[in-house]
């Protein structure tokens, strides 16, 4: 219970929910005070999202009660919840790509004329004023197709405020895809809403986000309530250990102090795609981990895509893989040369979730395990089992469907699929985006191990502590140019931030 005597904005009382045989929530209860920021923490699968869905009327609870300002509240739909001032903003904005920004903001609750028609002019005016209040540099008439996740999130916010000032606002991993500058803007916005009396429930994996911003912390683990305490009384390590249920000494595995000098694996010279990035040159050696920092939209993913021949825009420059010049990179050619790129949207491109772990692990390496064009069962099984062991994928067996795996383990399957092709260069784009603390540390350890085994690894990440923690050397990309290249020993969070944002724009 909150220390003050006022009625909590939200009380969750003994809420349980199960899906089939899986218990998502078991007898969860806690309270959220008005005018405060409340962090809801837990690993993937701890039940945070289920809880949000229950409160906002997406799903009904099996048992238990939700109280809003002391009154029992059970919303039949998210629309009913929104009408009562209870809204959620999700990390993956759910948008209508063909419609424009204003229509997305007002979907399902269009302002109407007396005749029951959509009042289009009023809709655009109100959408624009909401966007302006939010400091979003978006045009209400612009099509949503092609917005970045960060920009799309503004639409979600505008949507949350369209029905009036929210009373209870859930932010589900809102910073996962945001740049530091965008995150700061989000915090200012949230603070403003909080000052006007809203209760804000902030769901996040990024503990570093929460320092000095959160009033109260609630931790869930395996669908059960672990603790609710004032943030000031909790240390970061206490939070983490209550989340994972064991002490975590170290979030970031230390990479070997310096890479053993090995031959160069990937060299990029003067890579340019007009309007996207300009004159990009760098090289990575075997055993080296190269971090690529910068803001979302700085052009980092596009550089990786250009190297792989995936970028649609025409590109000039020279890409050399292990001494072999590649005049016109194509995904197929780069794969032959042993360069593997794991894009940010892994689920969309990486996995056939209805199929077994084995099928997914071996699909990129069928040549190795086939004879006369036919797949040989035993080598396939051996390869899958070896990878599953090396990556410590947690599952009953290689025959299990990928759909049954947790997010972190799915990630490992994607990685394993490419490791099966014995690559020489690995380019990882936001490898821990949306991954929980425990799995994150495992991914970092894996990156270090792969480099130690001789692979050249490029890690693109917006998570600064991550880049600093795993890399030997860090490139900073700003506005399509490499603006800094720093050794790990000389790198600091503030220095990289300054380079990424353009010194002076943000006090580092």
């Amino acid at each position, binding site marked *: 219970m909150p220390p003050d005597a006022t009625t909590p904005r939200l009380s969750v009382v003994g809420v349980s929910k199960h899906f089939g045989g899986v218990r998502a929530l078991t007898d969860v209860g806690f309270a959220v005070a008005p005018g405060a920021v409340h962090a809801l923490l837990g690993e993937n699968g701890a039940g945070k999202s289920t809880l949000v869905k229950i409160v906002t009327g997406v799903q009904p609870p099996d048992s238990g009660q939700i109280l809003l300002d002391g009154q029992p509240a059970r919303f039949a739909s998210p629309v009913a919840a929104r009408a009562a001032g209870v809204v959620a903003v999700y990390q993956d904005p759910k948008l209508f790509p063909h419609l424009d920004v204003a229509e997305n903001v007002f*979907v*399902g609750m269009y302002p109407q004329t007396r005749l029951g028609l*959509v009042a289009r002019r009023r809709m655009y005016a109100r959408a624009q004023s909401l966007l302006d209040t939010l400091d979003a540099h978006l045009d209400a008439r612009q099509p949503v*197709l*092609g917005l970045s996740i960060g*920009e799309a999130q503004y639409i979600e916010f505008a949507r949350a405020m369209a029905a009036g000032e929210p009373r209870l606002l859930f932010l589900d991993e809102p910073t996962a895809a945001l740049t530091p500058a965008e995150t700061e803007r989000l915090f200012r916005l949230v603070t403003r809403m909080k000052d006007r009396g809203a209760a804000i429930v902030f769901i996040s994996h990024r503990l570093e986000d929460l320092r000095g911003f959160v009033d109260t912390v609630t931790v869930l683990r395996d669908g059960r309530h672990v603790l609710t305490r004032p943030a000031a009384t909790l240390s970061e390590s206490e939070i983490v250990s209550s989340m994972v249920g064991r002490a975590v000494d170290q979030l970031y595995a230390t990479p070997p102090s310096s890479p053993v000098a090995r031959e160069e694996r990937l060299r990029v010279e003067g890579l340019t795609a007009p309007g*996207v990035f300009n004159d990009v040159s760098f090289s990575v050696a075997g055993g080296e981990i190269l971090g690529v920092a910068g803001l979302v939209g700085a*052009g980092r993913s596009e550089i990786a895509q250009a190297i792989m021949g995936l970028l649609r825009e025409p590109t000039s420059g020279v890409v050399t893989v292990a001494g072999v010049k590649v005049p016109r990179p194509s995904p197929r050619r780069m794969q032959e040369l042993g360069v593997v790129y794991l894009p940010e949207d892994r689920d969309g491109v990486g996995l056939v979730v209805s199929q077994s772990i084995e099928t997914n692990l071996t699909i990129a390496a069928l040549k190795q395990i086939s004879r006369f064009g036919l797949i040989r069962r035993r080598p396939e099984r051996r390869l899958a089992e070896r990878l599953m062991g090396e990556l410590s994928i947690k599952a009953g067996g290689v025959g299990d469907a990928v759909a049954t795996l947790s997010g972190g383990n799915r990630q490992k399957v994607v990685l394993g699929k490419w490791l099966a092709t014995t690559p020489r260069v690995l380019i990882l784009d936001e490898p821990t985006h949306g991954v929980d603390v425990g799995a994150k540390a495992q991914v970092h350890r894996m990156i270090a191990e792969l480099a130690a085994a001789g692979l050249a690894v490029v890690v693109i990440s917006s998570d600064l502590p991550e880049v600093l923690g795993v890399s030997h050397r860090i490139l900073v990309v*700003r506005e399509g140019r490499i*603006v800094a290249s720093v050794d790990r020993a000389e790198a600091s969070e503030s220095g990289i931030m300054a380079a990424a944002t353009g010194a002076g724009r943000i006090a580092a």
Partner: protein
Amino acid sequence: MTATPVKAAVLGDSRPSRFRVAALQNRVLGVLAFLVVLFVFFGALAPNFANFDNINTIALNASILVVVACAEATVVLTRNYDLSVGSVVALASYVGFDVIRLHPGAGPILAAVPMALGALCGAVNGALVGYSGVPSVIATLGTMSIFRGLAYVYAAGRQIDLKDLPDWVDKGVNGHVLGLAVLPLIAVVVAALAGFLLRYLPLGRQIYAVGSNPQAAAFYGLNAPSVVFRAYVLCGLLTGLAAFLFGARVTYVVPYLAQGLELTVLAAVVIGGVSVLGGSGNVVGAAIGAVAITAIDNGLVLIGASDFARQFMQGAAIVAAVVVDAFVQRRVGEIVRAMQRAGRR
């Protein structure tokens, strides 16, 4: 190093205009341009193509297709299809005109009968697709046979002669108002009204939203099954109107009327820039697409192409339109992404 020169260097002058995106997205202009090209092409090949009489013929022939194209577009916008429109025309016109024949004194109000029958057929389709979740191609392929079969059973080998119908039918549909043929006027009014309602009616916007992203629509409390259901009812209603117009245009109303209409209509809708992936396009485009299809057919006849060639051309037109659609969608995405990148800097 300051940020400005970098910005200038990176952007160059390759920044695309909003106008280009708008032009690509709203493909009515493109369809119109296509129509102009068609007229120039056939006008050059067939001397009597571009004269007043022939254009009048095209307008008359296109009118009913325009109405059905508007109907079909409403459903295609929700990311579904209606393959039963041809059968609905047959059933609604046969049964509808039978009722009109039996009640000659009731007057033009009975034109509502085929429309109501069409709406009923649409409700069946909508219930199957919206509420039972049957994929629309399968569901409407089934009802295509069912409705046609019902028409045959009801007709039991008979046919309805235009001569047996009250005067208002022929006068109303094939007559003139202020010197203009009624049929094309009806088509224009239907297209304009349907376009207006899809843009300004909350249901219209929901039809677009459901087609654009069904999951998100459900999430934001749009009742997707109900939206799809109502889109089918609207489609059926307009198809019923087309059935009335169709029946009044032919000398005999028979249950095998409008065979294969669904393919022609789909061609019109797709050529008109309505994306088969839902959520994008509008009925005015579909209406112009219907005129284009009719003009192609008319032109082919005038230059003496065989029946087979005409069928070939129709199929080719659908495939070509879908390929263009895929290309345009991709291109719009690219331009918008480039714009975003430019805008962020």
